């Protein structure tokens, strides 16, 4: 005879506990961790380079690049003046809190105020795993289309800030900015939406301001 033992625990519970523990430690140290997510080709690295330029002299930034088995992005960002570490994730589609902790250890956090995790380019799996970040942001670029919130609702639900990138090419695409914003807000009424062009620099200062405010609030509270 078989006896049933009820457990009823989410499989994500382990990761969620590790993430909460990491977040509490970072809070204690006053180190802000941003989890940055997007599709491949949305302009994450270019946006990061612009962000570093905007924050230069104010915040010391460290970047963890989780692109699969390549150090192209890490070198680009390093050239822009940030401390970087390349996380080789060997084909994984997302990062867990445990992997993020290892990344922070490899990066070394004593001399930085802001750590940015450039998550793997994918709108599905990274949304499911809490990395322990203070805040999460995502980039949606104009050529990807305004229907992405409908197709990948979880990603838009878990992010605190939505950057809409490549605004400079808006006239050439059937991208309805109002529709994209409305769809994102229907999923997540509190989401901050910032249209930018990492290429021309348009909107980057507004994004940098949002980030400054978040880092400040994290250190104060």
């Amino acid at each position, binding site marked *: 005879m078989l*006896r*049933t033992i009820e457990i009823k625990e989410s*499989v994500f519970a382990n990761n969620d506990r590790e993430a909460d523990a990491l977040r509490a430690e970072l809070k204690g140290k006053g180190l802000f961790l941003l989890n940055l997510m997007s599709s491949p080709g949305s302009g994450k690295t270019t946006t990061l380079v612009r962000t570093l330029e905007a924050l230069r002299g104010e915040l010391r930034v460290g970047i963890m690049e989780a692109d699969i088995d390549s150090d192209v992005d890490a070198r680009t960002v390093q050239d822009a003046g940030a401390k970087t570490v390349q996380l080789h994730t060997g084909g994984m*589609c997302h990062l867990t809190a445990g992997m993020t902790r290892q990344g922070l250890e490899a990066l070394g956090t004593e001399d930085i105020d802001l750590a940015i995790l450039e998550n793997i380019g994918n709108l599905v799996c990274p949304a499911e795993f809490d990395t322990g970040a203070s805040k999460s942001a995502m980039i949606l670029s104009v050529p990807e289309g305004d229907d992405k919130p409908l197709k990948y609702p979880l990603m838009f639900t878990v992010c605190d800030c939505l950057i809409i990138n490549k605004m400079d090419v808006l006239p050439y695409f059937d991208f309805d900015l109002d529709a994209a914003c409305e769809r994102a807000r229907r999923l997540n009424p509190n989401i901050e939406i910032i249209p930018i062009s990492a290429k021309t620099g348009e909107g980057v200062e507004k994004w940098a301001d949002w980030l400054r405010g978040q880092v400040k609030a994290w250190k104060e509270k």
Partner: protein
Amino acid sequence: MHEMTLAISAIKSVIEFARDNDIDEIDTVVLEIGELSLVVPQYMEDAYYAAVPGTMLEHTKLRMDIVPGNGICRDCGKVYNIIEHKGRCPVCGSESKDILSGEEFNIKELLVLEDEPE
């Protein structure tokens, strides 16, 4: 392939639970997978059996209970299956809804062999 990470995470949790509760032998591990979760049952099954060798779960069976993805229409109150109706209320056509079930991915229960009465 997030199924592999999740399978390993589930296996770890089950082993911990068994240790804490003095369970030596498990017959079946039961997972509860919602239709709206981003977990593909077929991949989960493959990942589970690929990950158990060398653990105390090596000879266990996996059972997956699928939870329907149901929502309630915010406009007319109809409860319907979101997958079947492609997210649109079959009565009034509205896409506005609250999800009632189907997002879960849980370790539901374990089936263990009952000790034979002496």
